[in-house]
């Protein structure tokens, strides 16, 4: 089984927003970063993955199973990591391990204790008194202690200081040494992804714009700068979005080879960061509406 999550022809209608006929595959054994502007549909898609929302149409499969007949089995193997522990706020980690443990077949209390130590978490303090970073770590410790194969996180690094974020990324990398594991997380901090992500999924208005290995993005996309008189109807075709000013143009291409052939040394080409790709792609998308 190569894909750990599979969406086929998913539609979901809301008043203001809808997803139509969405396909999405998440590869097993890798870290996939999930990016897109606010309101692009990230949380909706995560909720569909978790069965917290049900699609109007289409099929969601996790570990090759659907939620209708295998909900419990799927949930056993997913760790949903988030910073708000709505159910357990007043409880301490010690209480939680007692309550959560019986719910999971694979709960490993020794493992849990080891992670609590490693993450330097207090066992007897109520969770609501934890900082955001500590809550994140607590949630992760619980997920890893029931041996979750798929870890889904909604903006795990938002609001964390840089040192803490780095620590969390190191933990993710450690988790990935085990090839059975998959991490899927949404984020606005694209520099987190530059370092550790294997695949990037970009969505915009409920549509998947791309789902690609990160090196492919680096090879195919580039920021191109040059003089505006190089642009005409034909050459403009090589770009996703062009910004013109009195001093020249700046544009995003997803076809580095073609641009090299067309313009040679007449333009300057730079590697496009994920942030730049997001910015220009979003601009291009709203232009076509």
């Amino acid at each position: 089984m190569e894909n750990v999550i599979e969406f086929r022809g998913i539609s979901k209608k809301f008043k203001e927003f809808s997803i139509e006929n969405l396909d999405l595959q998440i590869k097993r054994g890798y870290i996939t970063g999930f990016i897109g502007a606010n309101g692009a549909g990230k949380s909706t898609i995560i909720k569909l993955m978790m069965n917290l929302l049900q699609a109007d149409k289409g099929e969601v499969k996790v570990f090759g199973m659907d939620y209708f007949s295998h909900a419990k089995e799927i949930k056993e193997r997913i760790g949903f990591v988030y910073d708000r522990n709505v159910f357990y706020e007043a409880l301490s980690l010690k209480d939680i391990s007692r309550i959560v443990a019986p719910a999971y077949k694979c709960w490993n209390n020794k493992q849990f204790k080891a992670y609590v130590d490693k993450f330097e978490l207090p066992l007897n303090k109520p969770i609501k008194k934890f900082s955001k970073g500590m809550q994140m770590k607590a949630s992760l410790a619980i997920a890893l202690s029931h041996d979750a194969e798929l870890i889904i996180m909604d903006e795990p690094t938002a609001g964390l200081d840089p040192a803490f974020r780095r620590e969390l990324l190191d933990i993710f990398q450690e988790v990935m040494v085990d090839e059975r594991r998959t991490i899927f997380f949404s984020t606005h901090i694209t520099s987190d992804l530059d370092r550790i992500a294997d695949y990037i999924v970009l969505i915009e208005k409920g549509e998947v714009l791309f789902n690609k290995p990160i090196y492919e993005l680096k090879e195919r996309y580039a920021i191109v700068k040059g003089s505006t008189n190089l642009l005409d109807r034909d050459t403009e075709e090589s770009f996703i979005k062009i910004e013109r000013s009195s001093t020249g143009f700046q544009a995003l291409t997803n076809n580095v080879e073609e641009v090299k052939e067309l313009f040679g040394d007449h333009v300057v080409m730079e590697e496009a960061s994920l942030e730049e790709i997001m910015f220009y792609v979003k601009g291009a998308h709203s232009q076509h509406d």
Partner: protein
Amino acid sequence: MQIIISNNSKEPIYEQIMKQIQTAILSGELAEGTALPSIRQLAKDLKISVITTKRAYEELEKSGFTYSIVGKGSFVAEQNLDVIREKKLKVIEEQLSVVIANSRELGLSYQELQELLKLLYEE
């Protein structure tokens, strides 16, 4: 084995890894049959993505520097150092031919070219 990668280099990270492992193999630092670190362990140690190290390993295997055994990992393949040396010499010959052609175009004498080469070589 030491691997140092630069995130600011124009050279893709997978190529940096590939070249450094190649160098270690050619210099004899990594002997035939030596196991390379696992793809996932190396990704963690270098603080880069799994897919990047995977790509480096795939390229190494494609160019015959390593071989892999499913479930066991990657190993240094037997290297025919004479053949590799021969190939590299050929590349140098080609590059020098270009230099000579350019020099003739400029009217640079053999003497002058030799001096220039000496200067650069000793740098």
